[in-house]
């Protein structure tokens, strides 16, 4: 049963495996981006793919994010299934017209007559000492836009299963990878064809006293905090929505109703970000069961500083989540 074999892979290996399998399965899948071929991207996520699939399917582009995203939109409409690589999520700023005014709207504007089945793989996350223009987590912007889907995997297995679903989806999908996870996070990943539907949250840890909703990089932080909380007798449930759109509202709401307390944690800027939506959804759905307001934890409202001691202050940590949870539980 090679299909149910489970191996330990890094996050990057899981991403690469999903791509390789989909490219073998479907000759329409191709990759476009800067230094994706021989270099396998600066993050070395795609190493080996060009050797198997050649430079017509793993295509190095000029540094023209708007241009090659636009090409992917047109290619997706006309028979290919491009997977675009946007190295740092910060560079998405250059692609907003292509993704938001074009890709997201073409199916609707054409009354359903054209489709844009493409994936944008990109990165998020700070604490890499990369400073303000290489550290942003801009997924909230895309979640705001009807017509796009937004995926935020937090484990190697989720990365593989969700990326395969993204590639098979008929819509433009933005797939955010935490760049700190690529080689640091390992986990069990089923071999062979294995996909995870979009819009289904995952309970990463069960608990009864408080719900910690974490996305992407913040799932590990939430799990770490849950371990600390356990030591003081607080049982935390950790929920990972996995996709911000579609959003599994019921999973969030049901957990919060059960525990009566919730904290949402996300690495994007804290204001007008993903935490606001997640908190609002929980507040709406679990209002009468909540013991206190939903607490939001996101990146500090500052451009990410380069200096390590400053940068480390900007994102939620196990300890800061632990403290917030402790306070919320005590108050109740």
């Amino acid at each position: 049963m090679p299909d149910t074999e489970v191996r330990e892979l890094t996050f990057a290996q899981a991403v690469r495996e999903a791509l390789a399998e989909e490219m073998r399965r479907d000759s329409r899948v191709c990759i476009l981006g800067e230094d994706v071929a021989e270099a396998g991207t600066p993050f070395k996520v795609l190493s080996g793919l060009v050797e198997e699939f050649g430079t017509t399917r793993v295509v190095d582009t000029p540094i023209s994010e708007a241009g090659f995203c636009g090409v992917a939109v047109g290619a997706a409409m006309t028979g290919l299934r491009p997977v675009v690589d946007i190295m740092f999520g910060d560079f998405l700023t250059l692609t907003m017209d292509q993704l938001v005014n074009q890709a997201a709207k073409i199916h609707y504007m054409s009354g359903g007559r054209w489709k844009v089945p493409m994936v944008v793989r990109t990165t998020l996350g700070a604490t890499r000492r990369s400073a303000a223009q290489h550290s942003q987590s801009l997924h909230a912007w895309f979640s705001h836009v009807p017509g796009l889907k937004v995926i935020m995997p937090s484990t190697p297995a989720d990365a593989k299963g969700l990326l395969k679903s993204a590639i098979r989806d008929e819509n433009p999908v933005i797939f955010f990878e935490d760049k700190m996870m690529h080689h640091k996070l390992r986990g069990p990943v089923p071999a062979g064809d294995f996909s995870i539907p979009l819009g289904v949250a995952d309970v990463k840890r069960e608990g009864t006293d408080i719900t910690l909703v974490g996305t992407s990089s913040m799932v590990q932080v939430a799990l770490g905090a849950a371990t600390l909380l356990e030591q003081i007798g607080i049982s935390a449930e950790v929920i990972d929505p996995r996709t911000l759109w579609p959003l599994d509202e019921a999973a969030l709401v049901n957990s919060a109703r059960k525990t009566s307390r919730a904290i949402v944690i996300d690495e994007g800027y804290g204001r007008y970000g993903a935490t606001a939506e997640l908190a609002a959804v929980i507040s709406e759905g679990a209002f009468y069961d909540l013991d206190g307001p939903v607490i939001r934890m996101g990146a500090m409202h500052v451009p990410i500083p380069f200096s390590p001691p400053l940068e480390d202050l900007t994102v939620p940590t196990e300890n800061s989540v632990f403290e917030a949870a402790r306070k919320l539980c005590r108050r109740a």
Partner: protein
Amino acid sequence: MTSTPGTDDKELLPAVLDDRWVEMYRQMVRIRAFEEQVNELYTRAVMPGLAHLYIGEEAIAVGVSESLHQDDYITSTHRGHGHCLAKGAAPDRMFAELLGKAAGYCHGKGGSMHIADPSTGNLGANAIVGGSMGIATGAAFSAKQLGNGRVAVCYFGEGALGQGVLYEVMNLASLWSLPVLYVCENNLYNEYTHFTETTAGDICARASAFGVCAESVDGQDVRAVHEAALLMVGRARRGEGPAFLLCNTYRYTGHHVGDISREYYRSKQEEQDWKTHRDPIRRHGEWLMAEGLADQAALMAVEHEARAEMLAAVEFATAAPWPLPEDVERHVYA
């Protein structure tokens, strides 16, 4: 187009008119008749929103489209009715779209600036200036990867020369020898500003600097446009790479139907000069007669038929039902 277009009355034309040059005359006349009805609808306050008329520029869409196959691709602009019609769109479904009706090409969801139609290779008109350059280049990328021999045409106004993405995708198309034709319609104005105030240097040089084969033609001369397009489309189809066709033209009416008082940015005299001396339909008609390819009566017949076709199409669209309320949430995701 060299393949048969989508409307029925074409088959009814007398045999003498069944000639490519005459067909181009007919297509230009149809576009103008369509646009005249659009203006009429606007004036009668029947049309929601605005529309940007193609009157005066007909030779470009027609001259280019007649060099394409039905399954070749085009992308179009806010001033896109002519491109869509020349590529084979049916006027009745276009008018329905302009009125926001369910029978429209986009179920009424797109409107004047977003006509799209897979059956004629129309990837869509676009309301973002320069917004479809990536899309057209991507369609050419697919054509090359899939080896299906198709060509993509990207129409845009000279104002779109201001959008950096054009240079990004011309570079890609040149590097990868993509079968795409960039057709720049220089009608002298970016909205209300003369293009010389917004466009430095030399337009064709901007394309050739990227290794894209570039040429400039009189956009009021359908034969010149067609001959240049034939050449460029042929090159592209043979895998010889992208081309850039600069067509010098003029829009006769306002930037959009509501742009009535234009004297602060251009003179009535200038408008009159173009209409009198460089009208693409009249010029082509005179040539057809001089060459003995058509006589006055035949040309008149074309005009009458076109007008009748457009009136019928308007009638269809006017009578067509609105989309249903529940349609508003359909087509967000495929």
